[in-house]
Structures are given as C-alpha cells and as structure tokens.
C-alpha cells in the first residue's frame, strides 16, 4: 500500500512551479470535474426527462385552450384529451396492435430497426435519424376528423426545437402552432414562444392545391397564406422552423400520412 501511495505523495510533494505538477494538476482537476458532472447528469436524467415530458403535455393542452371552440367540441365528444395513434411514416398507415403511450422516441432513434438514417439532402431539419413511427393526436366526433396534431422537431440555432402543429379537418389549414420545447437565444430565437408570434399561425395553409408544401417563414411582411413573418434578428431560428415544417410535412415526414387521409379518410 505504501509503495502504491508513494508516487502519489511524490507527485504532490513536487514544487508548484514544476512542469509535471502543473500538467498533472490540470489533468487531475479536469478528470475529477468531468466525472462529477457526468455522474450527476446521468443520475438526474430520469427526473429531468419526466419534467420535460410533463411540460410537453402541458404545452399541448395549452395549445388546445387557444383554439376557439376546441374545448367545447371535446366536451361534446366526451373526451378530455386527444386520442393518440401511432403512424407508420413510410406508408402513412396507422400502426395497429401497439400501445401509443408506450412509444419511446429516444429508444426508437437508437434502434436501427425502428429508425432510418437520413442522408444530408433529405435531412433539412437537421435531425440525422428519423423514427419509423410517430404518434399523432386526433380529435374526432362521430367518425369525422376535427383536428389533427402532429409532433415535429428540428434543429434551431443552438437547440432542438420541438413543436406541435395542429391542422384543421381540411388537412391544409393550420389551426395553431405550439412550441413545446426550445433553447434558442433568449430575446431573439426564443421569441418563437411568444403568444403574439404564435398568433400569426392560425389560418395559414401548409400546401397549395397541387399538394406542394409551401409553408415558410419570411423576412418582412408575409403576403401569401403560405407565409408567416419570421423573427427579426433570429434568421437561423426562423429558417430552422421552415425546414422543420417542410421536412415533417414532406415525403419523409407525415406527407404519406396526410395524403392517405385526404384520399381515404381515417
């Protein structure tokens, strides 16, 4: 034991101006600090994830409250929240026989069988991998679709932006957009959370008559139903939102699902 300790003692006995001691102390402090940080981060992750999940649910509920008449409709239909279904993104069909509540996006993204890698050209949203399935939230009354909420996410300026896009029964008109989670610059990109900006979204169209996705954020004034005012000073956050929506409404995202709904209904 003493022999084991003696090099350590010798190291600490060195002068503080000694090169070995300087580099050694730097390495030692770095190692201990990074170990402390990593251990806390890993141990506390389950708690933090639970908090974030609760927050996401609260934001979706909050979005429902901003939609006029939605709560009444839900009351009439006798439901207190939206119905969750899993969608196979490749062909747009509903996944049957699986519990949507058990869907774990993080686990699916880790699993090569449950997700696909996106090549650089297709990956406009900057998400690298896409799960093969995604939950969608539906509100229907007597078999008629009233509202559909699509969870979307993509790279913003310095964080992943998660949002929920509510689309009306015509599958083209946006009912509302809710930013569920983001960590962009406070005062600039983070302004996508402000109610004033989110209020610009209802009534916009995601695609034109031919089905081409046209929705985008623009500088200056929005002039067509497909355009929404971007956030000034946050070009990359604005572009991130455009790309996120373009991706998730496109062929690799919910495109096939929306097409199927337009043709066949639920």
């Amino acid at each position, binding site marked *: 034991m003493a022999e084991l300790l003696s090099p350590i003692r010798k190291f*600490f006995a060195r002068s*503080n*101006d000694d090169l070995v001691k300087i580099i050694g102390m730097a390495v030692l*402090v770095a190692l201990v*600090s990074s170990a402390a940080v990593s251990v*806390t*981060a890993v141990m506390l992750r389950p708690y933090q994830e639970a908090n974030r999940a609760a927050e996401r649910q609260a934001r979706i509920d909050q979005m429902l409250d901003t939609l006029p008449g939605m709560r009444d409709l839900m009351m009439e239909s006798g439901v207190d929240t939206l119905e969750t279904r899993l969608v196979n993104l490749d062909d747009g069909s509903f996944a049957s026989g699986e519990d949507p509540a058990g869907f774990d996006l993080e686990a699916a993204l880790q699993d090569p069988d449950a997700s696909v890698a996106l090549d650089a050209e297709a990956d406009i949203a900057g998400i690298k991998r896409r799960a093969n399935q995604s939950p969608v939230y539906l509100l229907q009354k007597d078999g008629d679709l009233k509202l559909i909420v699509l969870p979307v996410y993509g790279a913003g300026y310095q964080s992943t932006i998660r949002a929920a896009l509510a689309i009306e029964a015509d599958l083209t008109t946006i009912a509302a957009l809710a930013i569920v989670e983001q960590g962009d610059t406070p005062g600039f990109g983070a302004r996508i959370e402000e109610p004033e900006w989110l209020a610009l979204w209802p009534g916009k169209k995601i695609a034109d008559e031919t089905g081409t996705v046209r929705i985008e954020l623009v500088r200056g004034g929005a002039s067509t139903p497909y355009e929404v005012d971007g956030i000034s000073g946050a070009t990359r956050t604005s572009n991130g939102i455009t790309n996120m929506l373009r991706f998730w409404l496109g062929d690799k995202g919910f495109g096939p699902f929306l097409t199927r709904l337009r043709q066949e209904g639920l």
Partner: protein
Amino acid sequence: MSLKHHLISPLIGNNPVTLQILGICSALAVTTTLSTAITMSVALTVVLCLSGGVISLMRHHIPPSIRLIIQITIVASIVIVIDQFMQAFMFEMSKRLSIFVGLIVTNCLVLGRAEAFAMRNPVLPSVLDGLGNGLGYSLILLIVGALREFLGTGGLMGVPLVSTVAEGGWFEPLGLMQLAPSAFFILGLLVWLVRVLRPEQVEQPEFRLKAAEDRRP
C-alpha cells in the same frame, strides 16, 4: 480576525455588492421578482461555500501559473451540478432563471472570493467567507427584488398586495421597475444609503481637479 468576523463583515460593512461592486450583472437580471431573487441567492450562496471550501482544500497544490483555469473549472463544475439538480427538482424555477444559473460561473463574486480569500486561507474560514459573502449578496438581491416586484407589479411572491389600476384600484404599477435600469437606480440608492450611514466606505478620489491656470495674456 475571528471566524464570526468572516461571516458578519460581508453583510453590510464589506458587502460584496454595495462596497466591492461585484456580481452586479446577475443582480440586475434576476431581481424582477422576489422568488427568482431568492432562488438565485440560494444557488449563489451554495456555489460560493462549495467553491471556497474545495479551492481552499487544495490551495497548496494549485500551481500559480494555472490557478485561474483550475478555479474556473471547479466553479463551473459545481454550477453545472447545481443546475442539473434544479432541472431535476425545481423545473419551473430553472426555466425562469434559464441562462442565469449557468452564468454564476462568470459571476465575478465567485472567482473574486476564490482568488482573494480561499487561495490563502484554511477551509473553515473559506467556507464561512463564502457563506458570508453569499448572504451579503442575497441581502442586496432580496431588497432589490422585493422593491422591484412590489413597485412593478403591486405584489410580492406573485401574491397581489395592493389593488392595481387595472383591477379598479389605486396603484399604478411602475413598468420601469421590471426593466434592468431600475435595478441600477435601486442599487445606486442603496450604495448611497450605506455610505451615508458608514462614511468610512467612501473612497478617496484618485484624482483631484486642479483649478485651471489662467493663461490668457
């Protein structure tokens, strides 16, 4: 210098904010409401105590040439750990404080006390010095936070105390109080007040203006 002295003196006599003018930037940012001020005070006090203790513990083995890097690394690790704890157990609060908890790292108060005190004093006085300075900082933050929230919204801790004009009462909230400049005004008035009560804190001017010589012919 008794142990008690380390704890008491930073409260008013040697207050880090009003005398040393350290940690001003966070004092502006988190004092819009009393509750954020309290959370920030607790977080900073804990960081000050821990960093003081850890740095004092290893002070004989910190090479002078890289001492600032080592101090900052230790402080940053402690801050990240505290931030993680807040995200896990005080989620709402951590969202409201957002980037400011992370910015404790750059709070000159923490590095200032590490460099000025913990580097050359034993562990117990260093922890007490951290605690004292943390409490001194907290005292100012709480005063500023309480004043700003009360004058700016007419309530404290989110509970309305006087009825505002908007609710049909008489109190007109001062919108300015919710903006950063008002913290400067209140801090300035506090510094003034403390120096009126304790004139020994007033610094001697470094330069005195000389009467200009009359050079006209």
